[in-house]
Protein backbone atom coordinates (compact mmCIF):
# COMPACT_ATOMS: atom_id res chain seq x y z
CA UNK A 1 0.00 0.00 0.00
CA UNK A 2 1.36 3.41 -0.98
CA UNK A 3 2.09 5.83 1.84
CA UNK A 4 -0.31 8.70 2.39
CA UNK A 5 0.59 11.87 0.54
CA UNK A 6 1.78 14.58 2.92
CA UNK A 7 -0.46 17.65 3.19
CA UNK A 8 0.62 20.63 1.08
CA UNK A 9 0.75 22.95 4.07
CA UNK A 10 3.44 22.14 6.62
CA UNK A 11 4.32 23.97 9.79
CA UNK A 12 7.68 23.96 11.49
CA UNK A 13 7.58 25.23 15.04
CA UNK A 14 10.53 26.53 16.97
CA UNK A 15 10.65 27.66 20.58
CA UNK A 16 13.77 29.06 22.17
CA UNK A 17 14.92 30.63 25.41
CA UNK A 18 15.01 34.42 25.08
CA UNK A 19 18.74 34.75 24.55
CA UNK A 20 20.31 36.83 21.76
CA UNK A 21 22.49 33.93 20.65
CA UNK A 22 19.41 31.90 19.68
CA UNK A 23 18.11 34.57 17.30
CA UNK A 24 20.74 33.46 14.81
CA UNK A 25 19.44 29.88 15.03
CA UNK A 26 15.90 31.08 14.36
CA UNK A 27 17.14 33.02 11.31
CA UNK A 28 18.92 29.97 9.92
CA UNK A 29 15.93 27.67 10.43
CA UNK A 30 13.53 30.19 8.88
CA UNK A 31 15.77 30.62 5.84
CA UNK A 32 16.08 26.86 5.36
CA UNK A 33 12.33 26.29 5.58
CA UNK A 34 11.66 29.24 3.27
CA UNK A 35 14.06 27.85 0.66
CA UNK A 36 12.46 24.44 0.88
CA UNK A 37 9.02 26.07 0.70
CA UNK A 38 9.76 27.67 -2.66
CA UNK A 39 10.62 31.24 -1.68
CA UNK A 40 12.82 32.74 -4.39
CA UNK A 41 16.52 32.95 -3.63
CA UNK A 42 16.42 36.72 -4.06
CA UNK A 43 13.92 36.99 -1.19
CA UNK A 44 15.72 34.72 1.27
CA UNK A 45 17.87 37.56 2.62
CA UNK A 46 14.70 39.49 3.37
CA UNK A 47 13.17 36.51 5.18
CA UNK A 48 16.34 36.04 7.20
CA UNK A 49 16.52 39.68 8.23
CA UNK A 50 12.81 40.18 8.97
CA UNK A 51 12.62 37.00 11.09
CA UNK A 52 15.75 38.08 12.94
CA UNK A 53 14.23 41.49 13.67
CA UNK A 54 10.98 40.01 14.98
CA UNK A 55 12.85 37.49 17.15
CA UNK A 56 15.23 40.16 18.49
CA UNK A 57 12.26 42.27 19.56
CA UNK A 58 10.63 39.29 21.26
CA UNK A 59 13.87 38.34 23.06
CA UNK A 60 14.25 41.89 24.34
CA UNK A 61 10.64 41.94 25.58
CA UNK A 62 11.01 38.56 27.29
CA UNK A 63 14.27 39.51 28.96
CA UNK A 64 12.53 42.48 30.55
CA UNK A 65 9.25 40.83 31.48
CA UNK A 66 9.40 37.04 31.49
CA UNK A 67 12.92 35.63 30.95
CA UNK A 68 11.83 32.09 31.79
CA UNK A 69 9.27 31.96 28.96
CA UNK A 70 10.33 30.82 25.48
CA UNK A 71 9.84 32.79 22.27
CA UNK A 72 7.79 30.92 19.66
CA UNK A 73 8.26 30.92 15.90
CA UNK A 74 5.92 29.18 13.45
CA UNK A 75 7.01 28.66 9.86
CA UNK A 76 4.08 27.83 7.60
CA UNK A 77 4.84 26.45 4.19
CA UNK A 78 1.57 27.20 2.42
CA UNK A 79 0.34 26.60 -1.11
CA UNK A 80 1.42 29.97 -2.46
CA UNK A 81 2.76 31.85 0.56
CA UNK A 82 5.46 31.24 3.10
CA UNK A 83 4.27 32.62 6.43
CA UNK A 84 6.21 33.29 9.62
CA UNK A 85 4.56 34.01 12.97
CA UNK A 86 6.73 35.21 15.86
CA UNK A 87 4.91 35.24 19.20
CA UNK A 88 6.01 36.58 22.53
CA UNK A 89 4.40 36.11 25.94
CA UNK A 90 4.60 39.70 27.11
CA UNK A 91 1.01 40.83 27.73
CA UNK A 92 -0.19 44.18 26.46
CA UNK A 93 3.21 45.11 25.12
CA UNK A 94 2.70 47.85 22.58
CA UNK A 95 5.17 47.01 19.81
CA UNK A 96 4.71 50.35 18.09
CA UNK A 97 5.62 52.36 21.18
CA UNK A 98 9.04 53.88 21.68
CA UNK A 99 11.52 52.72 24.31
CA UNK A 100 9.82 52.02 27.60
CA UNK A 101 11.08 53.53 30.84
CA UNK A 102 12.06 50.03 32.06
CA UNK A 103 14.55 49.56 29.26
CA UNK A 104 18.11 49.85 30.48
CA UNK A 105 20.19 52.57 28.81
CA UNK A 106 22.47 49.91 27.33
CA UNK A 107 19.61 47.99 25.76
CA UNK A 108 17.97 51.19 24.54
CA UNK A 109 21.14 52.18 22.78
CA UNK A 110 21.64 48.77 21.25
CA UNK A 111 18.23 49.11 19.71
CA UNK A 112 18.86 52.67 18.74
CA UNK A 113 15.72 53.55 20.71
CA UNK A 114 14.28 54.34 17.30
CA UNK A 115 12.11 51.34 16.54
CA UNK A 116 14.40 50.61 13.63
CA UNK A 117 13.43 46.95 13.87
CA UNK A 118 9.85 47.62 12.85
CA UNK A 119 10.99 49.88 10.04
CA UNK A 120 13.13 47.03 8.74
CA UNK A 121 10.36 44.44 9.07
CA UNK A 122 7.85 46.70 7.32
CA UNK A 123 10.35 47.41 4.56
CA UNK A 124 11.25 43.78 3.94
CA UNK A 125 8.24 41.54 4.49
CA UNK A 126 5.82 41.29 1.63
CA UNK A 127 2.88 41.32 4.04
CA UNK A 128 3.03 42.19 7.74
CA UNK A 129 0.49 42.11 10.55
CA UNK A 130 1.28 43.02 14.14
CA UNK A 131 -1.28 42.27 16.82
CA UNK A 132 -1.03 42.96 20.52
CA UNK A 133 -3.22 40.75 22.69
CA UNK A 134 -3.58 40.19 26.45
CA UNK A 135 -1.31 37.15 26.11
CA UNK A 136 1.40 38.73 24.02
CA UNK A 137 2.43 40.21 20.68
CA UNK A 138 2.16 38.30 17.44
CA UNK A 139 4.05 39.39 14.32
CA UNK A 140 2.91 37.67 11.14
CA UNK A 141 4.94 38.09 7.96
CA UNK A 142 4.65 36.35 4.62
CA UNK A 143 6.32 36.11 1.24
CA UNK A 144 5.25 34.54 -2.06
CA UNK A 145 6.32 30.94 -2.65
CA UNK A 146 6.33 28.90 -5.83
CA UNK A 147 5.60 25.19 -5.87
CA UNK A 148 7.02 22.97 -8.59
Amino acid at each position, binding site marked *: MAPEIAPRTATVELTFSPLPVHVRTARLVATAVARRGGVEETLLDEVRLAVGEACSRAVEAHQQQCPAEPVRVELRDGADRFEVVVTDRVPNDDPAAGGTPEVSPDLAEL*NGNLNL*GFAVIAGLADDVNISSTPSGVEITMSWPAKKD
Partner: protein
Amino acid sequence: MDLKVSDYTTDDDLTVINVEGEIDVYTAPKLREKLIDLVNKGKYHLLVDMEKVEFLDSTGLGVLVGGLKRVRAHDGSLELVCTQERILKIFRITGLTKVFGIFDSVDDARENRKKQK
Protein backbone atom coordinates in the same frame (compact mmCIF):
# COMPACT_ATOMS: atom_id res chain seq x y z
CA MET B 1 29.97 33.43 12.29
CA ASP B 2 31.33 35.55 15.11
CA LEU B 3 32.14 39.19 14.73
CA LYS B 4 35.73 40.29 14.23
CA VAL B 5 36.57 43.93 14.89
CA SER B 6 39.99 45.55 14.43
CA ASP B 7 41.21 49.08 13.85
CA TYR B 8 44.10 51.20 12.69
CA THR B 9 44.68 54.91 12.50
CA THR B 10 45.86 56.58 9.29
CA ASP B 11 48.38 59.40 9.08
CA ASP B 12 45.50 61.84 8.54
CA ASP B 13 44.06 60.93 11.97
CA LEU B 14 41.24 58.78 10.67
CA THR B 15 40.56 55.58 12.59
CA VAL B 16 39.43 52.77 10.32
CA ILE B 17 37.44 50.00 11.97
CA ASN B 18 37.38 46.75 10.02
CA VAL B 19 34.30 44.68 10.80
CA GLU B 20 33.93 41.10 9.63
CA GLY B 21 31.02 38.71 10.19
CA GLU B 22 27.45 39.17 11.39
CA ILE B 23 26.30 42.22 13.33
CA ASP B 24 23.16 41.27 15.20
CA VAL B 25 21.59 41.39 18.65
CA TYR B 26 24.20 38.88 19.89
CA THR B 27 27.36 40.40 18.45
CA ALA B 28 26.51 44.13 18.31
CA PRO B 29 27.74 44.78 21.88
CA LYS B 30 31.28 43.94 20.71
CA LEU B 31 31.15 46.68 18.06
CA ARG B 32 29.58 49.07 20.55
CA GLU B 33 32.40 48.46 23.02
CA LYS B 34 34.98 49.11 20.32
CA LEU B 35 33.37 52.42 19.35
CA ILE B 36 33.13 53.53 22.98
CA ASP B 37 36.74 52.50 23.60
CA LEU B 38 38.00 54.50 20.63
CA VAL B 39 36.06 57.62 21.64
CA ASN B 40 37.38 57.27 25.19
CA LYS B 41 40.89 57.20 23.70
CA GLY B 42 40.25 60.46 21.88
CA LYS B 43 39.57 58.98 18.43
CA TYR B 44 36.76 61.13 17.12
CA HIS B 45 37.01 60.56 13.36
CA LEU B 46 35.90 57.01 12.64
CA LEU B 47 35.40 55.08 9.42
CA VAL B 48 33.66 51.71 9.73
CA ASP B 49 34.64 49.39 6.87
CA MET B 50 31.67 47.06 6.34
CA GLU B 51 32.85 45.30 3.20
CA LYS B 52 33.24 41.99 5.06
CA VAL B 53 29.98 42.28 7.00
CA GLU B 54 27.73 39.37 6.09
CA PHE B 55 24.66 40.39 8.03
CA LEU B 56 23.43 43.59 9.65
CA ASP B 57 20.22 44.10 11.60
CA SER B 58 18.61 47.03 13.39
CA THR B 59 20.65 46.36 16.52
CA GLY B 60 23.78 46.98 14.48
CA LEU B 61 22.23 50.13 13.03
CA GLY B 62 21.47 51.28 16.57
CA VAL B 63 25.09 50.79 17.59
CA LEU B 64 26.31 52.81 14.60
CA VAL B 65 23.83 55.60 15.41
CA GLY B 66 25.02 55.51 19.03
CA GLY B 67 28.62 55.80 17.84
CA LEU B 68 27.73 58.72 15.60
CA LYS B 69 26.14 60.55 18.54
CA ARG B 70 29.26 59.98 20.63
CA VAL B 71 31.74 61.33 18.08
CA ARG B 72 29.51 64.26 17.16
CA ALA B 73 29.58 65.30 20.81
CA HIS B 74 33.30 65.89 20.17
CA ASP B 75 32.80 67.48 16.73
CA GLY B 76 33.88 64.20 15.21
CA SER B 77 32.57 62.02 12.41
CA LEU B 78 31.53 58.44 11.80
CA GLU B 79 31.33 57.31 8.19
CA LEU B 80 30.97 53.97 6.49
CA VAL B 81 32.51 51.98 3.66
CA CYS B 82 29.92 49.72 2.08
CA THR B 83 29.19 48.56 -1.45
CA GLN B 84 27.09 45.48 -0.65
CA GLU B 85 23.57 46.00 -1.90
CA ARG B 86 21.94 43.81 0.75
CA ILE B 87 23.53 45.90 3.51
CA LEU B 88 22.88 49.23 1.79
CA LYS B 89 19.22 48.27 1.44
CA ILE B 90 18.83 48.27 5.24
CA PHE B 91 20.26 51.78 5.45
CA ARG B 92 17.86 52.93 2.73
CA ILE B 93 14.80 51.33 4.36
CA THR B 94 15.52 53.08 7.64
CA GLY B 95 16.46 56.40 6.05
CA LEU B 96 19.97 56.25 7.50
CA THR B 97 21.62 56.89 4.14
CA LYS B 98 20.87 60.55 4.92
CA VAL B 99 22.61 60.29 8.29
CA PHE B 100 25.83 58.48 7.41
CA GLY B 101 28.39 59.28 4.77
CA ILE B 102 28.73 56.01 2.83
CA PHE B 103 31.74 55.45 0.57
CA ASP B 104 32.86 52.78 -1.88
CA SER B 105 36.31 52.40 -0.35
CA VAL B 106 38.57 53.60 2.44
CA ASP B 107 40.54 55.59 -0.14
CA ASP B 108 37.36 57.33 -1.33
CA ALA B 109 36.46 58.26 2.24
CA ARG B 110 39.96 59.61 2.88
CA GLU B 111 39.88 61.59 -0.35
CA ASN B 112 36.55 63.12 0.62
CA ARG B 113 37.94 63.99 4.02
CA LYS B 114 40.90 65.80 2.45
CA LYS B 115 38.56 67.83 0.23
CA GLN B 116 36.53 68.94 3.23
CA LYS B 117 39.56 70.16 5.15
